[in-house]
């Protein structure tokens, strides 16, 4: 009954590059012969709000939105956003890859849940929980803005594509600094080797 394929949710805040990342995954999926549905909520993305994309990859899928608690993986570009979507979409046994740097924004430090409490809940689901200092790695690759590519690299070992297809669609999707972005991707990939 279960689909071959996977459901990934990329969660961040406006300006973090979630849309580009989801398009890269979507293109890799189409090239790998899968059916794809990507749903984006980005109406208010420039205004500091949460941005979420649902990437559904498989052979027999239709719904633009992910049914609650059916996501195989959350890629969180920000800890609170990773947590928010874990509470809503992660399935038992599902994995979380999260960037460890918080953006407090309108939430404020006081109301922002403790990092350790959030990751403890993620671990309860029983899958991998992989924290990545993606900003640090992106800076090392040349620019903190490439955090999203670090995160894709860190998540790659759980994705149903071969690495050449994924890096190929990364090359096609990036407009500038392709090599630096590939380096960022690779730093992410290396950081997942510890799992």
């Amino acid at each position, binding site marked *: 009954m279960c689909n071959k394929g996977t459901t990934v949710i990329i969660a961040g805040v406006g300006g973090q590059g979630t849309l580009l990342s989801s398009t890269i995954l979507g293109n890799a999926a189409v090239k790998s012969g899968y059916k794809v549905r990507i749903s984006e909520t980005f109406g208010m993305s420039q*205004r500091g*709000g949460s941005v979420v994309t649902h990437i559904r990859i498989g052979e027999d899928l239709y*719904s*633009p939105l992910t049914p609650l608690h059916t996501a195989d993986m959350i890629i969180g570009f920000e800890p609170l956003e990773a947590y928010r979507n874990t509470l809503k979409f992660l399935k*038992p046994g599902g994995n979380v890859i999260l960037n460890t740097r918080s953006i407090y924004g309108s939430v404020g430090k006081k109301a922002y849940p403790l990092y350790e409490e959030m990751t403890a809940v993620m671990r*309860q689901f029983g899958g991998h929980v992989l924290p990545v200092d993606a900003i640090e790695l992106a800076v090392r690759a040349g620019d903190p803005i490439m955090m999203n590519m670090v995160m894709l690299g860190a998540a790659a070992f759980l994705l149903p594509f071969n690495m050449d297809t994924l890096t190929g669609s990364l090359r096609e999707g990036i407009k500038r600094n392709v090599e630096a972005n590939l380096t960022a991707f690779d730093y992410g990939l290396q950081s997942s080797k510890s799992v």
Partner: protein
Amino acid sequence: MASKPGMLLQDTPDKKILLMGNEAFARGALEAGVQLAAGYPGTPSSEIIESLGSVAREAGVYTEWSVNEKVAFEVAYAGSVSGVRSLVVFKSVGLNVAMDSLMVANAAGVEGGFVILTADDPYGHSSQNEQDCRCFARVAEVPLIEPGDPQEAKDSIRLACDLSERTKLPVIVRSVTRLSHVRGDVTLENLAVRKKTPFVSETEVYSGFPCLPHHRMLHQKLDSLGDIANEFPFNRFEGKGGEKVGIVAPGVGYAYVKEMARILGIQEEIAILKIGLANPLPVGLIRDFLGKYGRVLVVEDGFPYFEEELRRIIYELDVKPEILGKLTGHFPREGELTPELVGSALGSIAGKEYHTVPQQVKDIIADVPDAPDRSLSLCAGCAHMAMWYAMKQAVKGAKKDIRKGAVVCGDIGCYGLGLFPPYNMYNTHVCMGASIGVAGGMSKVGLGKPVFAYLGDGTFFHTGMPALQNAVFNNSKMVVILQDNLTTAMTGHQENPSVGRTLMGDAATQVKVENVALAMGVPYVKVVDPYNIEEVVSVITEAMEIDGPAVVVGRRMCAELAKREVRRRGIKIVPPSIDQNTCTGCQTCVSQLRCPALIWDQDTKKVSVDHILCVGCGLCRQVCKEEAISSGEGVADV
């Protein structure tokens, strides 16, 4: 955000690529041989015209942003009357603006395929209502096609053009948010090569007059579609005939039904009728289907359109099935479809309980901290927060809440955020251009308070202009705050008459809104810089004394555009610093401006500046009574 332009122009039939629904519509227009396209931006439709615009020159498709949906409709109608395939695109509420023209174009008829692509927004993610264009198709008595996924989105444009040319009727294509903004795999067909030479008949007149023969002809055209409706390519019957229940699922509803039936494991227990044409109805197909099942559930986004139509059709049947849906409480009457709503409804009729949250997850998340929401805010450096602050300073007794001292009529744009705390700016907030119209009435009812209308340049050109002319005509005493940020910002910085450039990149006359106001006869027109709060306060104070309409134009480039301009020119943004000894923690800056770059520290009870978000506009320095904030550099210099 539209993808790379080259992607839309590849002439590789049968290739499968990833397209957003809106890009798929644009690709469909290129495959269908559309030669003229016009639109007005509005979420969730904007990327369709943006995508076409990005390839317009290369593809030889004239594409424009018009000043409003009615004008866009008329521009596209001209293309059709001239024999070329034409497309007009807008969001749900845009159809209201264009309706006046549609209600004649339907009977006057078309020549080249004429497609009206309307993107509805069930749930109102980015809209002021949840209207459903299928109801409008019934009123206008024109065909309406309802695609359900990106593949059908692409294919719908060619089908709509064919249908339009066959019947000589305008054809509406309905999108919804979950189609326009979904990416999926789409198999391409050839790009159209045939270009038609435009020609306007030298004998025919396209008009609704005389009324009766034209109306009769409209009915004949629509009636001729009976068989086409039953055989329309997007219709699909999936079942054997003996299932427990029948599901009628048009558009995106079909996708949710297929997915949730699989998850519930009830694929064998339901039969599905997907209907691709909402007007005219495929009555024969529906009648056959209704005859097979005792219970029929309708799964549709928007109004209970098919549900009501089905109830009408069962009237003619000897054995009447139960029709279930929004009118029977199986779905809520407001909001959009979700997997959970569809799962629950399917489960309830198939006798299977749908657990939205598995027990195992319930146990994990039972007693954990909440994930607090991120509230929306204007962008750092936004001129609206400056203007709102200045208005509250200028109006007596309104420093905390402007509505204590004035009546403010709002409009549609980024400044819609003024509806929410801490701003609480508006008494009314209706639709595009309504600020000045409503303010006109407010000025006449005798409220004894100053009256404001608040709108932006795009909205002014859209429908604000006639209302301002009305205010001049009737000498309505009001202050119109006209914020000119030199773009249509809310929907992603599209061109408008304030920009000086068209969608296709041609130079255009840059229209100054103050010149328009003066030409209309407005007795008081002043242009201010919103970044100079003192000046703005004094001008608004003066404007409130005018015995008639006064227009205060606040001109500042949208801060997001200015930020790009700053980068382009290599100007370094220097955020101001806040002296932590001088800051008294009064919170005037954070609570009145609510700039996302100002951070309130709960522990120290002081404010500091977020160096990543700050654009160096200098507004916080101006509102600080303690002079704790230094001057910065950045967007104020472009």
